[in-house]
């Protein structure tokens, strides 16, 4: 951990420290004002624990955003706190969803002797395997855990072969094997882009499915490693790359909307839940 901290002049570090403190104070002040403001007309007054909660999460949100400028003590703090809380949340979740119903109830709170016996018959091995999983922690006995992993990995491997063949290969292959006359998946856009019946009804479909075929084949060929991509082969894989690039561009452009949505969600929280500004969008 002896790596160099980001090289900055002590001068600047001091300034940053001051700014940080100032920000914290500002946050406190704003929060105070907001909390003091009486609940508006027709507003559902919040329970105290929720008021506190909103303040805390607003603080955490801002701290997390401070990472955009630079790593800082508050961020480190929040980051570690988050890691811890996430772990605790997960632990309780597993306890409630899995350990209690699957182990505690049937075994330690079995209603009758027979029930206990049957529970042991049904679950004994599984619980044993679960315990063996834990030996992974010891250097010496970790090999016990291989039995449990073996079971799970074996299952998913074997089942995967079947499932993937069905849904990923056969289905997709079947969808790609079709006559060129197959009508376009959705001619609505076609009619927007082009006019003329022949074109939208015959020309485009043929063109479309041709594009589809060329695309799939050329990209598949780009992932073909057994021959050198020179000459015609090189040309095909070049086309493949072009298709890939168009696709990635499209994905990028599409994803923008999703990421912005996340940002909007957070700002919605800051503006309307924390600062209680008007015209809430109600998400």
């Amino acid at each position, binding site marked *: 951990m002896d*790596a*160099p*901290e*980001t090289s900055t002049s002590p001068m600047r570090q001091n300034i940053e420290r001051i700014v940080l403190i100032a920000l914290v104070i500002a946050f406190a002040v704003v929060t105070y004002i907001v909390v003091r403001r009486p609940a508006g*007309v*027709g507003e*559902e*007054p919040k329970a105290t624990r929720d008021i506190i909660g909103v303040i805390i999460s607003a603080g955490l949100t801002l701290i997390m955003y401070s*990472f955009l400028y*630079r*790593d800082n003590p508050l961020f480190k703090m929040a*980051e570690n706190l*988050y*890691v811890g809380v*996430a*772990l605790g949340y*997960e632990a309780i979740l597993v306890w409630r969803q899995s350990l209690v119903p699957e182990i505690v*109830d049937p075994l330690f709170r*079995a*209603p*009758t002797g*027979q*029930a206990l016996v*049957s529970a042991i018959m049904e679950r004994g091995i599984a619980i044993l395997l679960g315990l063996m999983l834990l030996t*992974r922690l010891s250097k010496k006995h*970790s090999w016990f855990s291989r039995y449990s*992993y073996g079971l799970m*990995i074996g299952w*998913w491997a074997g089942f995967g*072969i079947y499932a993937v*063949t069905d849904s990923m*290969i*056969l*289905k997709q*292959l*079947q969808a*790609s*094997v*079709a*006559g*060129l*006359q197959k009508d376009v998946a959705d001619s609505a856009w076609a009619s927007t882009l082009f006019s003329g019946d022949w074109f939208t009804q015959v020309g485009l479909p043929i063109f479309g*499915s041709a594009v589809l*075929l060329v695309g*799939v*084949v050329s990209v*598949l*060929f780009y*992932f*073909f*490693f*057994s*021959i*050198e991509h020179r000459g015609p082969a090189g040309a095909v894989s070049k086309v493949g790359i072009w298709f*890939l*690039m168009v696709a*990635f561009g499209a*994905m*990028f452009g599409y*994803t923008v909307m999703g990421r912005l949505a996340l940002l909007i969600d957070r700002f919605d929280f800051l503006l309307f839940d924390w600062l209680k500004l008007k015209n809430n969008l109600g998400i």
Partner: protein
Amino acid sequence: MASAKTIDRFGGLVAAIAIGFSLCAAAWGQVQPPAADSVKVHDRPSDDGSAVVVEWPKPAELPENVQYVIEIARKPEDFADKKFQTIKITPSKNLLKTGREKYFGFAASNQDWYAEEVTPAEYLKPQIPWAFTAEESAHLRTVGDVAAVAGIKDALTGLEQWKSLTWCVKEGLLSEKDAQRAWLAWKLTERYAKDVTAATAEATAVQKKAEEELEQAVEARKQAQTAVSQASGPGLEQAKESLAAAVAAEARARAALRSANEAARMTGERVREGLTKSERSDVDWLGRLDSYLEQAKAKRLKKAMQEINAGTYCYRFGVRSEGGETTLVGPVGAEAVYSGRAEANLFRRYKLNNLVFALAFSGIVLTFIQIAKRNPNLYIRKIAGLEAVEEAIGRATEMGRSAYFVHGLGGVSDLATIAAINVLSRVARRAAEYDTRVRVMNWEPIVTAVSQEVVQQAYTEAGRPDAYDPDDIALVGYNQFSYAAAVAARMVREQPAAIFLIGYFLAESLLLSETGASTGAIQVAGTDSDSQLPFFITTCDYTLIGEELYAASAYLSREPRMLGSLRGQDVAKAFLMTAMVVGTIVFTMAVAFGWHVEWIKGLFEVLD
């Protein structure tokens, strides 16, 4: 299954008969039943022996207001003395499935048939030993009426419970003592449940009232507001006052509603508090006991139904016209009686294509792995991103800073992770030679362990086992984003000169690569998670796209298992490409020359 095949064969002929029938039917305006010999009752192929299939020719057009009727009985005599069950089927696109490729293949004749799957146990219900038979409950009801007991239903359910408990004792599911306790606990629970329902009803009523009051209050407040907005001069003051009053009233209403909701939520708890400690434990105990007994009963019931399904039963088939009178097939008086038996089959025929592909592909891959073991320098085309690995390490050495290797979210059995580990061993090897520090960031304990071994080995091979520090291979986060946050933060703090983002990534990909870019590090990425590839492509210096990652690991490690399976995959890819091209050509020509090639699609059909 044999029967299914014969049906395919005779399909055409029978279809002709059927069409003939339905034509004259159309002439007379009501549907004739199909010919007796054209109706088939046989085992449903490729199933677990839970149903038989009744088939009959499909008329030219769907008959109007006509139902098909299937009668099922244990033995032929039962038809005479009315001990049979009737299945009514209204023909419609949804109800009556035709052309069941799933069971009968893709023969064109499938379209000429109607098929109904009959599960005997659904109609010849098993006698559930722990419940009352029809007679018993009827008797009890009369007894009840005589006794004119109010709430006879409760008495009945009580007896039901009692019977079920005795049955459980008989079956050895429950000891006498437990049964006794259960009986007492049950009576207690009944009372408890009644109280709860009563209390809940009360509480919900209160809730409703509170809600209404709140609504009124809100209305009043809104009016008051409008009044204020319109009022002026002397009226204004008064309006303001009334508004204040309205607001206060609303606040009260809200408080009332909140407490009402709270109360409604806690009714169960409140009633429960009323019980004594032992009573409470009894109620809980009974709850657990019931769920256990329910499972046991369900098991037995399932078994009983399976036994019923396994039997041979008699069927009659007919058509039910608008008037409601049923015309059974076969000569009047001696209607045809078919017998059918559901058998468990050993193989799902309709999964054959899946099996063939899976086995063929497995064969290819395994063979090539063997070949590769003998000759480990199978040709793999050069992969652009790979020189980048060397380059990046070199750069890190020049700048005297560390190199990061980020594993992503894959588990240890994920393909991407295993490929990544192969790349890692190469990276670590180079780093050890150049005396550059590699830090590996994980979130998964086993991946950490494996990485540690790989890196240690690499250092040993490089002849500098002393330089290996296990703390460099760290597990830094627990879930996706704590992991991402931790890694990003470390990047900023330690400013690595080279960053390898190789493995399976989700949304955190951009977070990592963009932070890395901001530190000016040279970045090499590789992942098979396509939704993240765009971000790596744009933000990293080199990216191994999808399978390139697998190829890269094979290329670097020269491991026969990697080389071989890569070659195997290439063969499969070649097959897919040819299939697509040829298929497209064939289908296009088929349309041009009017060939019947639907069966080709059938080869790839995935039937559920």
